[in-house]
């Protein structure tokens, strides 16, 4: 997995490439926690995300919980396959997907 971070004022965009699974999810969680202070808009760009497992979903959920308190979070460029996972798990209702 590769995480590309782009910060623009209080807006943080994290582009995730590759596999977000049990082995790589802790890395994303650490990256979010270390960068999130003062961020009011967190954007996950998942255009190049090839795979997500429940461990990855947990990081999106915990990030959403943080951002609900301090601003907003968006997930962008979601593929059909990943959208189906969001649908089944009810994540389409709790995340802002664009």
């Amino acid at each position, binding site marked *: 997995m590769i995480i590309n971070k782009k910060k623009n004022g209080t807006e943080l965009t994290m582009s995730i490439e590759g596999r977000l*699974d*049990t*082995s790589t999810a802790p890395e994303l969680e650490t990256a979010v926690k270390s960068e999130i202070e003062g961020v009011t808009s967190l954007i996950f760009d998942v255009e190049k995300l090839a*795979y*997500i*497992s*429940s*461990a990855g*979903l*947990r990081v999106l*959920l*915990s990030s*959403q*919980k943080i951002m*609900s308190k301090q601003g907003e979070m968006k997930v962008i460029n979601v593929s*059909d*396959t990943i959208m*189906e*996972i969001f649908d*089944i*798990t*009810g994540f389409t*209702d*709790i*995340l802002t997907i664009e």
Partner: protein
Amino acid sequence: MASSLESRLETEALTDNLHQVLSFLEQQLDNTACSMKVRMQITMAAEEIFVNIAHYAYGAEVGKAVVISELSDTSHTMTITFIDSGTPYDPLEKEDPDVTLSAEERKTGGLGIFLTKKFMDNVEYSYEDGKNIFKMQKKLF
């Protein structure tokens, strides 16, 4: 004539070996004409089951996990069986998470086995001769 291709992988039940297990299954899937979507659903379900074994089956000890993949030419299905000799544990007994709750109300766990049940056509658990046996099946196309 009915034919099937069976392959077997034995490895230590450690999350570090997750990619070994997933690569093994992906190699089997390379022999099929299944879609990327089906491939991801199978891989995802397999990750959840293997990681469960790695986390819970042997406590602090390290034990073995066996993964058997069976591809049927006639029914176009893949059957994956996970076997470990750890603590008896039926993941199917776990209650499904409430997927209608808001982000704030949601607990972060329990999604893995829920997705496994959703994505696979058939899942079954048994405990035989001191072994946990988890079998899951999906039609490939």
